[in-house]
């Protein structure tokens, strides 16, 4: 009667009772390991799932990476942009110089270079090739020009708008030209791409949930017998859920790792053409790979989505399996 003769108290004295938290930690560790081992029982099927999820993750992640860095590019390019201010023709050389030194004091202006009417004409002559015709003119038809470089922190479209508005109200200023159109366009393209990326990310996140959910459903289906027996010997729902949640965690982790590799390969592939594009805008911008933070976000998102997908499915599916 070795099995039944010992009373519970005797049993407790033979093995030191384990605290609840210690027991939970041990149980979770066991499930972590057993779910890890289970992964390699069907490596090909798992790999296919991971690849599917990795693609779904890599796509929005790549777009986000590109966007976050492209808005950076937009700012850098903008730094080389000027505001051209044409003074009225009756402005004297002294007035022009005074205006330029006054404007240079403004906080939103980094630098002002003054181009007198004579200088402007000389430059135009040399660049236009119309030297002869222009020399025959008695009066200089060109105004003096101020080239204004805004301060870095005042490069946003609103600040530039405000600045040009104020410049227009100044005496002696005839015309203010900002080449803002392309910046506006870039801004709206970025805004559109951003919304597109977010919607895509949302849809693909849903896709991840569904794929993981379906995988878990099949997984549960294939272990139906085991689940029935576990329910009959008194396994709790939490106990039954655990291996599937951990499987979800592993799925998320491996998918994220594959997505990360896809992303880095993509960055390497795109690096050169993007460099050319940036250089054509006189920018030293380069496409960077995922930062530590970015990599962490990718892995965290992937794991949470997977565990969530598993959790949402497992509850429902386990309820469907009841011993009859």
């Amino acid at each position: 009667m070795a099995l039944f003769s010992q009373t519970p108290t005797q049993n407790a004295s033979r093995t030191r009772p384990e605290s609840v938290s210690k027991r939970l930690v041990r149980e979770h560790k066991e499930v972590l390991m057993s779910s890890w081992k289970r992964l390699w029982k069907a490596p090909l099927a798992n790999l296919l799932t991971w690849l599917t999820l990795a693609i779904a993750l890599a796509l929005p992640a790549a777009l986000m990476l590109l966007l976050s860095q492209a808005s950076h590019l937009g700012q850098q390019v903008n730094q080389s942009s000027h505001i051209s201010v044409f003074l009225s023709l009756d402005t004297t050389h002294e007035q022009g110089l005074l205006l330029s030194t006054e404007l240079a004091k403004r906080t939103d202006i980094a630098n002002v270079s003054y181009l007198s009417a004579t200088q402007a004409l000389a430059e135009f002559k040399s660049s236009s090739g119309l030297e002869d015709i222009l020399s025959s003119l008695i009066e200089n038809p060109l105004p003096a020009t101020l080239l204004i470089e805004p301060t870095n922190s005042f490069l946003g479209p609103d600040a530039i708008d405000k600045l040009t508005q104020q410049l227009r109200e100044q005496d002696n200023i005839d015309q203010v030209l900002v080449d803002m159109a392309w910046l506006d366009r870039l801004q709206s393209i970025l805004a559109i791409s951003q919304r597109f990326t977010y919607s895509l990310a949302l849809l693909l996140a849903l896709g991840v949930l569904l794929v993981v959910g379906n995988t878990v459903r099949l997984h549960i289906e294939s272990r139906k017998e085991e689940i029935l027996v576990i329910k009959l010997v008194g396994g709790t729902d939490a106990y039954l859920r655990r291996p599937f949640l951990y499987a979800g965690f592993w799925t998320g982790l491996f998918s994220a790792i594959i997505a990360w590799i896809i992303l880095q390969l993509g960055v390497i592939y795109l690096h050169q053409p993007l460099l050319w594009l940036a250089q054509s805008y006189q920018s030293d911008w380069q496409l960077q790979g995922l930062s530590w933070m970015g990599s962490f976000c990718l892995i965290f998102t992937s794991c949470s989505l997977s565990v969530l997908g598993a959790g949402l499915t497992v509850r429902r599916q386990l309820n469907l399996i009841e011993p009859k």
Partner: protein
Amino acid sequence: MISFEQVSKKYHEKNALANASFHLQRGTMAFLTGHSGAGKSTLLKLIMLMAHPTSGKVIVDRQDLSQLNRAQVPAHRRKIGLVFQNHQLLMDYSVFDNVALPLKISGYNERDSGRRVRAALDKVGLLDKERLSPQTLSSGEQQRIGIARAIVNKPKLILADEPTGNLDPALSAEIMRLFQQFNQVGVSVLIASHDLELIQRLPHPVIALNQGRISGSASLMGH
């Protein structure tokens, strides 16, 4: 240990169990007999909360089962060792892991669980088969693995549905002796069986079912 009060269970308007009332005292070993389809398995399922009565009250270990909510069902089942009619072993588990399952879900550590599993396997005489797959065992051996799994957690109550169905008379008698041993240390045992010959030789009360009705309960109160 078990009380049925006017319990009926209907499947598709047909009574599998009709107005069944009986009381099994704590520490008693009893048999449940009846023809095939009499409602033996149904009665055991009601105790296991695998089914719920259409009417009437089932009380196990002073607990009215209708009062238990979903989350309390596992704890209730852990109190009971169940030997299945079709033994329900997991073929991709080893014999050892099958028997260890009730311990594993209760969070036993490996050392304690290993000791208990071996004690249980020793009881049913299959200690040397612990590493094998149940598939490689005879049905009698599989049945005994099922019994080892039911007793490994030292339940207060053992329910067995045709535990000797696949066994020869000698082995059947051996298994019955095993149940008697558990009973002697205070475990309540309820065994569904239609092996009348075997039952009549043993001095235990009998609950006889006929078409879902209790037709007799010979010496149930232990006289």
